[in-house]
Every structure is written in C-alpha cells, then in structure tokens.
C-alpha cells in the first residue's frame, strides 16, 4: 500500500510549526515542547508576567478535568462544521479523521514526554539528561500503547479489546474495540445515515499516533453494535506494506 499523500502533507504541516517561516500557514503551534526553552526565540510578544506556554509546566493539566458537556459541544460544532463542507458520509468521516490526525501527533509527544519524566527531578531536565522516549518499534507494543496509555489519557480507561485479523489474507489488520466511545455518547444517527460513525475522529487520532511512531496506517471506525453496547465501535487499523516488511526484518533480528 502506497503512503497516502494526505499523510505526507499533514505531517509536513505539523512539523513545520517549529520555526519555518511559513509555519503559520495552517497549524497552531500547540505542539508541546519536550524541552522548554526559557525564552521564546520568536518575534512574538509575551506578557510581562510571563504567562506563556514556556513558563507553565507541561504536566499542569495532566490530571485536570473539564466538563464532558463542554467536549460534547465542541465536538458537535466540529461535526456540524464538517457537515457543511462535505458531500456524503464517507467524506464526512474523512474530514473528522483529518481533524483527529494532528491530535494524535500531539498526544504522542505528550505520552512520550510523560512516560520519560515521571520523577519530579526530571521536570527541568534538558533533553540531554533524560532517557530517550520509549518509542515502540514493533506493531504489538504500538497497539498496546494505543489500547492502554493513549486510551487512558483520553478516556480514563483502557480500550475494551485488541484483536488481530484471523484472515490469512489480511495479516496487516488489527482491531481495537471501544464498547461505548465517548464521542458517540450523545449521538443518535438517523437511519438514512446509519453507516456514519463520528468516532472517525478517534480513528484519526489513532492514525496520527501510528504515523507519529513511524507506522504508516489507515484507521477507520465501524459500528458493531451489540445488544448490551449499542454504540460499540471497532477501530480497524490497516498497516502499510512497508510496515509489514519491516516487521518481518525486526522479527528475524529479534527486536521486540
């Protein structure tokens, strides 16, 4: 599977915000900086009381909570806004996926940052003294990172299931299941749109995390309701050929 061009462009957008002149073109530089520099090097004005992102600890909001309704309203506006600009359900899901994608990249940074600086002594350490982030090299650790830490960061619980495709034709397919996705809590999909799953936004986040780790993948969200879990959603991860080939090489070399 060839690398989808969209990803390439998304990546370049997200990476450009560290200082390229045209960085402002399309993305907010929200990316948390793993090693805060004491002074912004840019031409930006800063408040005299130093209320900038560089002066606030990145873990400040780690355990912070906000109203679930606030999220629901923002998400609702995102869906409504996306709906105005699309032609069909697939298009809508694609757009929601694209909105989630940059989030995945950012959350990945946050996850790594936090998994390396657990002790308070690491708070102000420069990049030289902290241990390198524990980036997954193989598919399974990546999936565990998504199923566990990523889900806990986002939803305060792990995902409900992690499976590998049983079909010999699709060894590159994995499924992560959420019995009751937060984003679908308030959504009642009309019958004429019954294929729609707004968790495409979460699929985008997963895709961002995979790509950020160097695992090219396509992720989509599918309705798989059960009697008990009417909004049960399966996230289907399809890794690219390059990933599968690398996987074989790493396996031979005993990399875990």
């Amino acid at each position, binding site marked *: 599977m060839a690398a989808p061009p969209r990803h390439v462009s998304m990546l370049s957008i997200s990476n450009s915000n560290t200082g390229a002149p045209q960085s402002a073109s399309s993305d907010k530089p929200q990316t948390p900086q793993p090693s805060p520099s004491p002074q912004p090097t840019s031409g930006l004005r800063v408040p005299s009381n130093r209320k900038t992102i560089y002066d606030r600890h990145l873990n400040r909001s780690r355990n912070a909570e906000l109203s679930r*309704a606030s999220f*629901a*309203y923002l*998400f*609702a*506006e*995102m*869906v*409504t806004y996306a709906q105005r600009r699309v032609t069909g359900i697939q298009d809508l899901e694609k757009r929601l996926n694209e909105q989630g994608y940059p989030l995945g990249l950012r959350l990945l940074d946050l996850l790594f940052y936090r998994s390396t600086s657990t002790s308070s002594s690491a708070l102000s350490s420069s990049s030289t003294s902290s241990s390198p982030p524990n980036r997954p090299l193989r598919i399974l650790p990546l999936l565990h990172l998504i199923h566990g830490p990523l889900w806990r960061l986002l939803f305060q619980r792990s995902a409900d299931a992690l499976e590998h495709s049983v079909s010999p034709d699709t060894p590159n397919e994995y499924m992560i299941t959420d019995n009751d996705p937060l984003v679908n*809590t*308030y*959504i*009642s*999909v*009309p*019958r004429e*749109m019954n294929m729609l799953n*707004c968790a495409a936004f979460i699929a985008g986040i997963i895709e961002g995390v995979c790509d950020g780790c160097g695992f090219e993948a396509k992720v989509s969200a599918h309705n798989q309701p059960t009697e008990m879990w009417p909004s049960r959603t399966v996230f289907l991860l399809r890794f690219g050929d390059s990933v599968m080939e690398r996987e074989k090489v790493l396996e031979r070399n005993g990399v875990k």
Partner: protein
Amino acid sequence: MPVYSFYIFDRHAECIYKRRWLPRPTSIAGKPSRATDAQAGSTGLGQTVKAGDDDAKLVFGTVFSLRNMVRKLGGEEDNFVSFTTSQYKLHYYETPTNIKFVMLTDLKSPSMRIALQQIYINLFVEYVVKNPLSPVEHPGGVGVNNELFEESLEQFVTRVLA
C-alpha cells in the same frame, strides 16, 4: 397511570414534538376523521409532528394564555402547573429558555411536574440538545424525533410512569 399524550413547544411557539400513547378522551380528540390517529398501536416510533395538526396549536394557545394569566394574577414567581377537566389532566412545565413541556394524563395522576422536568433534564438535554446531528433549533420537529430520545421517552413513560 395512563399517559395520553405529550407535547414539546419551542421558544418560537412551534410544536417540535408530539406523541400519543392511548386514545385521547373524546373531548379533545378533534374531528372524527382523525379518530384513527388516536388508536393505540398507531403511535409507533418516529411519529413526527404534522403541521396543521390543530390540537397542538390549541394546546399551545391554552397553556400560553394560562401561563400569562397566572403570572399576571399571582406575580412573576407564580407558575401554572396543571389543569383538570372531567376527562383528563394537563400538566405543564416550562424551562427558563421558554421550552414548554405538556403532558395529558388521566384524572387520578399525581403531579407530573417533576416527571416533565426529568424528561427535559435527562432526555431532551442529553439526547436532543447534545446530539451533534440534531440542529440547534428544531423547525418542523427536525432532530427531536431521534432514536435515542424516542426510545428513552417510551421507556420513561411506560416503565417509570406506569
């Protein structure tokens, strides 16, 4: 206790949701030609508001006048809660955003004010207001008659209020 019918009116005085459970008492059943509407069993899920259904208009006109009269006589803190005829009892609850909830029950029914408030808080807000696929306002009832809202309303009325 039998619940006969239920209405929601928005702040533009439009009936945005209407549902019947049991045959209405004859005094408000409207024209005889409409009698079939009122049969139990014809009230399946998805019954939407029909423009021109005059009972909704009548109900609105009545509660609107009563509510204004009550405030004029009793002061702004006074509330119109319910009225009773020889056939039915009409219960009324109004949100501070001017959404009006009306329920018709049999005469023996206790006050439904709390029940209507519960429908507003737990069903309307959760499944209509917060639903990204429902519009912010509901001209013609669009977005209110979604599955989650209708099913939970059905459950609430048949299990909780029964």
